[in-house]
């Protein structure tokens, strides 16, 4: 028996390692979305490094913008003076619009305060691979964040928190392949599931006979248990008409620009 083990030591080792890794992966799939101690610890340990890198990068970008990139400043200054005269005349008109805008914004802010408790957060890093769509924000369990909380910006839905450490969390973007959001077409209330496909989304299970056209607004339906009702997801980008079948393939262009994600809001009260 011992000879057998010695002879096939390598094969046994390889099989054992693969088996253990598969079992571990499988057990994590069954456990669902809860963060493990390992994940929380690693995320927490990297907080100062990520924050420091973020600060260094901001500083470097600031130096570049304000000092090194000023070679053609004099030329630009002349252009800006000309522009300034033109803009000054338009400013008076804009003032009126600004005042109206402020009033509307106050109303919106009031509505937001009444309906939901939000937590502002900063995106400090992105997914380490090219295949998945997640970001890390600088708020975590210490700030009241839990797994499964919706994350939004003014333009619409960003995603939901999937891993939460004490001071930072990972957010699964709605464009990730693992993301599915219960949605509806705003104009005719057709229901569907918005699934991520990388840069865009698709609207699955939208009935073929429903009238859906390019440009239609897609919003959250509020039935998935994660996102509140009525948040903007995107616009219908392409509808492929089919002659038969139950559903119609629909492509959605998200309203949020995920390549420029910096500040986000976590909706605290909408947790599971």
């Amino acid at each position, binding site marked *: 028996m011992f000879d057998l083990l010695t002879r096939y030591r*390598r094969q046994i*080792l*390889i099989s054992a*390692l*693969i088996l253990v*890794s*598969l079992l*571990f*992966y*499988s*057990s*994590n*799939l069954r456990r669902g*979305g809860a963060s*493990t101690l*390992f*994940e929380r610890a*690693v*995320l927490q340990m*990297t907080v100062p*490094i*990520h924050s420091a*890198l*973020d600060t260094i*990068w901001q500083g470097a970008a600031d130096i570049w913008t304000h000092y090194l990139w000023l070679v053609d400043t004099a030329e630009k200054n002349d252009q800006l003076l000309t522009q300034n005269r033109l803009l000054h005349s338009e400013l008076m008109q804009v003032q009126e619009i600004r005042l109206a805008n402020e009033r509307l914004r106050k109303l919106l802010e009031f509505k937001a305060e009444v309906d939901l408790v939000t937590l502002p957060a900063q995106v*400090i*890093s*992105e*997914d*380490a*691979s*090219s*295949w*998945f*769509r*997640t970001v*890390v924000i600088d708020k975590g369990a210490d700030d009241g964040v839990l797994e499964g909380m919706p994350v939004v910006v003014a333009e619409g839905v960003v995603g939901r928190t*999937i*891993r939460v450490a004490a001071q930072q969390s*990972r957010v*699964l973007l709605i464009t*990730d*392949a*693992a*993301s*599915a959001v219960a949605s509806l077409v705003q104009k005719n209330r057709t229901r569907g599931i918005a*699934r*991520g*496909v*990388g*840069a865009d989304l*698709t609207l699955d299970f939208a009935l073929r006979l429903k009238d859906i056209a390019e440009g239609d607004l897609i919003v959250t339906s509020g039935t998935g248990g994660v996102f509140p009702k009525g948040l903007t997801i995107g616009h219908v980008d392409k509808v492929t008409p089919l002659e038969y079948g139950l559903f119609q393939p629909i492509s959605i262009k998200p309203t949020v620009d*995920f*390549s420029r994600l910096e500040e986000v809001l976590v909706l605290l009260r909408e947790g599971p």
Partner: protein
Amino acid sequence: MRILFYLLFGLVGLLIQTAVFPRILPFYLKPDLILVLIVYIGISEKYSSGGLFSYGFGLLLDVFAGSSLGMYGVVFLLIFFGVRSTICYFNSENPFLLLFLVFCATLFQASLLVLLGAFAEAGALWQIVLHHLPGQLLMNVFAAVLLMLFVTWLQKRFFRLVVPGLQRLDERYDD
């Protein structure tokens, strides 16, 4: 010392991938430095130590990528075993060996992610992988070229410096 080098390279690579590349590269096109490291470990390390390293780095990457802990662990472990078990059939004198293996490992990684993603209800992951695979192949090979040039420069510039791990290429025939 060699282990320290792997750890240092892996952790720095991970930080670069999460905090630096996103500032200068689009979301869908980041070179996978950890994959290059795993291929290198596959070339130069033994089954037991290399397997554990690969799995460990996979788990670390899982914390910062994707939504299922253990997925990259399995992927990197299988990539390591794939490289380690086939390396004896290649000409070690060829300078393009690492690049070729990184190319193959990227293809293998994409296949494994699609396969394992199917169990994790990862939806249309295969669409994302297929769409970005050509770019990812180029990025990974390009990153491997840059790393090779950097290491060669290090060795030339600091003549006495021996980069740990790079002297073990011929030891793969030991067992």
